[in-house]
């Protein structure tokens, strides 16, 4: 790798200390991961037949929401919120599905690239409006959610369209070992690469800085407006990934796809990203999505009314926010 001698030295000096610091910073995510592992064991316990099929099903069903959660995490870390993620997913989903129907595989590649660019543009429009109008993020993105949803209905009135076979093959089924879902690999690759690049960039630092204290960041010379537009554009890009994953996993486009926006907010909060901004990452929200999905599965295994699952999700969320606030209060005033 390109690590300089200096980095190796400082990193190698106290590897245990660095590891401990990493663990402290990611304590919440690691806790979530442990909880998810326990939940898998519990699932196997209540439903002994839960196995390869269950894991594969879980992976493919969480892919769109996991990508949406990462999209939401980015903008929430920057101190904003995006209530149009679900609509952007619907729009990119139907644009991809309607363009790909009956066209060649090569053309589908062009469509995928174009749809990702479309996501960037949609997000940048959101961000530019937030910055230029100075209207609160929550209002601007709520309004834009209607705009993007309307556009989706203009493209496709009812579910339809199609997906290139290679796009479906990209996310459906296992890779190598039957236990390893392609969807999980796609998720890890997309999020891993982009998130890693963001964290290592100047933009990544300004993302956390404007989320921590926008005034301080501005006075330090950060271009707050530009950083915000970047954040929203990146959120749009991930919403487009999420929309494409819907096209790939369902094989069609649906202008009225589910309640992804609010679920993404839930996953972000549960995943340890502070709604006040400046804190958290991409890993926690993804694990949170896995937990929420598996809880839902377990409720069906336990023959509980699935509507109860939705309520349970809300209760968990309130609990998490309350516990988180208590921790913050205790830390803030030692």
């Amino acid at each position, binding site marked *: 790798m*390109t690590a300089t001698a200096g*980095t190796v030295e400082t990193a190698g000096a106290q590897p245990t200390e660095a590891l401990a610091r990493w663990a402290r910073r990611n304590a919440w995510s690691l806790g979530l991961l442990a909880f998810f592992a326990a939940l898998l064991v519990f699932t196997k316990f209540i439903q002994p037949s839960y196995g390869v099929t269950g894991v594969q099903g879980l992976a493919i069903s969480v892919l769109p929401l996991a990508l949406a959660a990462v999209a939401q995490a980015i903008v929430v870390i920057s101190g904003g919120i995006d209530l149009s993620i679900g609509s952007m997913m619907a729009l990119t989903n139907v644009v991809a599905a309607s363009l790909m129907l009956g066209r060649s595989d090569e053309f589908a590649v062009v469509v995928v690239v174009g749809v990702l660019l479309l996501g960037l543009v949609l997000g940048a429009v959101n961000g530019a409006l937030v910055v230029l109008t100075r209207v609160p993020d929550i209002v601007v993105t709520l309004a834009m959610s209607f705009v993007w949803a309307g556009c989706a209905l203009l493209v496709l009135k009812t579910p339809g369209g199609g997906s290139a076979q290679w796009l479906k093959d990209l996310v459906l089924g296992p890779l190598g070992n039957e236990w390893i879902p392609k969807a999980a690999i796609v998720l890890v690759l997309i999020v891993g690469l982009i998130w890693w690049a963001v964290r290592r960039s100047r933009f990544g*630092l*300004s993302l956390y800085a404007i989320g921590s204290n926008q005034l301080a960041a501005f006075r330090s*010379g*950060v271009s707050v407006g530009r950083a915000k537009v970047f954040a929203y554009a990146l959120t749009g890009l991930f919403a487009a990934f999420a929309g494409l994953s819907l096209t790939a996993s369902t094989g069609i486009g649906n202008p009225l796809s589910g309640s992804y926006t609010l679920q993404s907010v839930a996953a972000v909060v549960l995943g340890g990203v502070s709604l006040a901004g*400046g*804190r958290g990452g991409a890993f926690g929200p993804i694990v949170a999505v896995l937990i929420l999905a598996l809880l839902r599965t377990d409720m069906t295994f336990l023959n509980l009314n699935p509507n109860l699952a939705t309520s349970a999700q809300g209760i968990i969320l309130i609990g998490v926010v309350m516990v988180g606030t208590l921790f913050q209060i205790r830390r803030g005033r030692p």
Partner: protein
Amino acid sequence: MSSGEANMTTTELVPLVEMRDIRVAFGGVHAVDGCTVDLYRGEVVGLVGGNGAGKSTLMRALSGAHPPDSGEIRIDGQPVSITNPRDAKTLAIETIYQTLALADNVDAPSNVFLGREVTTRLGSLDDSAMESATRTVMGRLNPNFTAFKTQVKSLSGGQRQAVAIARAVYFNAKILIMDEPTAALGPAETAQVRALIRQLKSEGIGIFLVSHDIHDVFDLADRISVMYHGQIVGTVNKDEVTIDQVLGMIILGKRPEEVTQKELAKLHG
């Protein structure tokens, strides 16, 4: 008052900073109402005045945090336009704000370099370079500081102040604005900041020092500009006035020679 007529063009006589007839209004409030101040190389100008007199607002006009509605700013005699903090930093104007301006959730080196990050050739953040540079400058300012990897929200007021000062010093400021730099500090840290101000002054840096501590100001400043209700009452040489006279200017908003005996008596209760 020594008002050396600036007919001569030697650089020593061109002020480092001239702010002329600066005005800033918030709605109907004229926070800064036609202020003119200047600052020379290696000089400390104390800016004093009651709460709400407009000191911070005047300084924010120079630091780019809130550009003035009207007025002229000259640096080294050249008119400049400072519309945001980046413009100010390009002109080597650094600011230590009254309310500390740090990003709580990132560490000290990232705060020092925020907005001016060091990157590797590949364009990614060079954390080790930023950390070692921060260690070097911090060694000069506050050798006890070791918290280079923790988020600054868990630092003490003094440590946070050290980070803010490190940021100003590292980038070779020519002009330093310190708005109540010791307000949140204990005696030891205050002494450290005073020593630092003297050192920076000896290096030729011009410093605007905003402070409510009149003794601090008399101790450190060469000249004192007094603000009252958004206007400059006057600028005096420290050696030519007494503390009481400056207090009179702050409280009454009049120059010493304009103050009547009656007012003076009232001032002394």
